[in-house]
């Protein structure tokens, strides 16, 4: 078992290393190697999932030892880890295959595929890690690979800025996470997940709201939740398959997975705060998505909103449901991102939806699979999103009314902006030359779309999955199944997507070059467009508060540390040196004189003339 666990972890690292060392110039070989690696990961993952006899597999060894403190390196493959392994390896494999088509003409292929391999390595590391410090190490590594891949088009200013922003904003969250880990070690004396669970079980008073929230900072940064959500929409500057893999299906979902791994660390207060934050994000991101023109940014805001749903489910005490939604979301959101990639590829990197139109007839497979994704995310009855999303809504309805209202409004908005995206992109008439001349992509790109669309349809039937994969979500699904108001929720859910779809049809069925919303409700439009001024606030904070503070500290540093202490002590030494230099006149007579005078002086001192 541990051999396979090591193989699945080190295989992508090896692939990245080979790409870095030998294949920098040969992009085609690098891409094939990377795809083969992801295939290998899929095989190993399936082995790990089905050969563990559904037991918790643990294995650990000493990583490093410092005095009395020991850091261990270990695997913990339990039910949630098996599910995430499945999602990461399966969706990852499809996206690798899609990348073969999407990146076919790229000149930096080997960098791209090497980056994907590093990402797979770090993501699998998070999945199987058995202690918080290991998770943190891989946590930073996914941050790094995300930075690397966002900046793939490194000659554009947008990509350079976006990668920097993603990296720095994530550091803010990770700092909180790190503090949380240190506090955890302080309070418990261990960072091993199983030992922590046992300790909390033994003495529940050990956990505190603050500790839980500090650890949740990691989730807030990585999953781009309020108030660190600003990086994800900008991160769309990277290649589209990267957005699908990292910024929709896996890495941002790793935040939810982290919460799940440490769900015993949260108090009631911390949980309810997370629920409200998540639900608020679900609604807020919906409003932002409603007014975007860039197809990928709409999907990015939709991802934010769905991550909010997962956080809300977790906050409501249903981690299994959060994981369930993570899985279905990974399928339909990867599907939609790859669909948008297909559209972008066909339209020569045009990303403005108002420049598309009428693509359904030209790209039937992309259009139909995209529509399936849209229907799934809107929660259309009996598709995958319906099950996971309505489970969250029902839980909220029965347990926390304010959260339910936020989430329900978010659900209507989801249907509205997703159908808006669909109608503007695929229906009507072509509004630009690029869209008029678009045509369907090859099998490398439509194949993954078709596979994912099947999963987006049937992914919600948990009984279809092998028990080994869905073990972790079954208990919570049974809890939800036992809740009242099922029928009422079906009516409400159906109402939500139908209202959204019809409004979108009436509003966006026939559009020109401008957003109809900006003409009819300009105030509302500009309010949504402003995204509530978060970017401006952070910009203001950095320019007006942080920069002056930094400059003040710089002056203080120049004055006191570099000026007074460093230059000052150097100055004293230089002064002494100058004094000494005066005696050095280059005449042997003077030296003899000083030598003898010095000897006499010493003798005089030794004989006690100076009265010591």
């Amino acid at each position, binding site marked *: 078992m541990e051999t396979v666990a090591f193989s699945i972890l080190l295989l992508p690292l090896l692939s990245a290393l080979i790409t870095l060392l030998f294949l920098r110039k040969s992009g085609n070989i690098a891409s094939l190697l990377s795809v083969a690696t992801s295939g290998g990961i899929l095989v190993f993952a399936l082995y790990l999932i089905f050969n563990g006899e559904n037991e918790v597999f643990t294995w650990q060894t000493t990583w490093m030892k410092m005095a009395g403190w020991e850091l261990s390196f270990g695997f913990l493959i339990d039910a949630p880890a098996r599910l995430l392994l499945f999602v990461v390896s399966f969706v990852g494999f499809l996206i690798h295959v899609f990348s073969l088509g999407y990146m076919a003409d790229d000149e930096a292929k080997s960098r791209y595929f090497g980056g994907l391999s590093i990402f797979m390595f770090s993501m699998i590391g998070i999945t199987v890690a058995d202690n918080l410090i290991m998770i943190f190490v891989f946590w930073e590594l996914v941050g790094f690979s995300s930075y690397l891949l966002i900046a793939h088009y490194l000659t554009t200013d947008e990509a350079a800025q976006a990668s920097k922003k993603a990296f720095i904003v994530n550091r803010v969250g990770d700092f909180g996470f790190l503090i949380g880990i240190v506090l955890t070690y302080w309070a418990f004396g261990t960072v091993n997940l199983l030992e922590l669970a046992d300790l909390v079980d033994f003495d529940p008073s050990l956990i505190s709201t603050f500790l839980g929230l500090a650890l949740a900072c990691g989730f807030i940064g990585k999953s781009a939740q309020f108030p660190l959500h600003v990086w994800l929409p900008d991160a769309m500057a990277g290649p589209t398959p990267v957005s699908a893999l990292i910024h929709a299906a896996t890495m941002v979902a790793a935040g939810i997975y982290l919460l799940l791994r440490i769900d015993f660390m949260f108090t009631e207060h911390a949980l309810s705060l997370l629920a409200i934050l998540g639900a608020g994000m679900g609604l807020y991101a919906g409003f932002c998505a409603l007014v975007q023109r860039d197809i990928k940014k709409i999907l990015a805001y939709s991802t934010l909103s769905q991550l909010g749903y997962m956080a809300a489910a977790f906050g409501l005490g249903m981690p299994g449901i959060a994981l369930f939604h993570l899985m279905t979301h990974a399928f339909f959101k990867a599907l939609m991102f790859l669909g948008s990639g297909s559209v972008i590829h066909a339209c020569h990197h045009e990303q403005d939806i108002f420049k598309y139109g009428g693509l359904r007839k030209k790209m039937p497979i992309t259009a139909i699979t995209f529509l399936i994704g849209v229907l799934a995310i809107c929660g259309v009855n009996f598709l995958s999103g319906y099950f996971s999303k309505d489970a969250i809504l029902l839980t909220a309805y029965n347990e926390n009314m304010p959260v339910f209202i936020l989430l329900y409004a978010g659900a209507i908005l989801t249907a509205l902006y997703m159908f808006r995206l669909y109608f503007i992109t695929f229906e009507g008439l072509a509004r630009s030359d690029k869209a008029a001349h678009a045509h369907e992509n090859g099998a490398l790109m439509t194949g993954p779309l078709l596979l994912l669309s099947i999963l987006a349809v049937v992914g919600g039937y948990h009984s279809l999955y092998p028990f080994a994969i869905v073990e972790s979500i079954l208990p919570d699904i049974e809890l939800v199944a036992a809740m009242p108001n099922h029928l009422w929720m079906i009516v409400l859910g159906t109402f939500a997507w139908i209202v959204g779809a019809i409004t979108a049809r009436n509003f966006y069925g026939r559009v020109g070059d401008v957003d109809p919303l900006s003409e009819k409700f300009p105030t509302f439009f500009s309010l949504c467009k402003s995204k509530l001024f978060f970017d401006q606030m952070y910009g203001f904070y950095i320019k007006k508060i942080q920069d002056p503070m930094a400059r003040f500290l710089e002056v203080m540093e120049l004055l006191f540390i570099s000026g007074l202490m460093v230059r000052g002590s150097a100055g004293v030494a230089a002064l002494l040196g100058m004094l000494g230099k005066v005696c050095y006149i*280059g*005449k042997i*007579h003077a030296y*003899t004189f000083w030598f003898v005078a010095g000897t006499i002086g010493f003798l005089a001192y030794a004989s006690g003339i100076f009265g010591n």
Partner: protein
Amino acid sequence: METVTPQHFLVLSFLLFAVGFLGVVIRRNLLLVLMSLELMLNGVNVALVSFSRTSLNLDGSLFVFFIMTVAATEVAVGLALLVALYKKRQSVFSEDISLLKN
């Protein structure tokens, strides 16, 4: 006639040493500097012999032999250096061979 006491020897020794020292410090000609060094050493020798005589043992006289030997070798080396120097720079004056400064 006044007897010669050890103090007389010490005064003589001090004077010889002082004359030698002045010679080293004042003279520019390195040949004379070497001679003045010899004078300083011999000034010390006088003092040692007188101490040896006063304390009625041979320790001081023994030292004198050592010093004379060392002085002879020192002069041999010093003169050799001086000859080599003169061959190279055509001068035996100290200010002409201060190479590190100026």
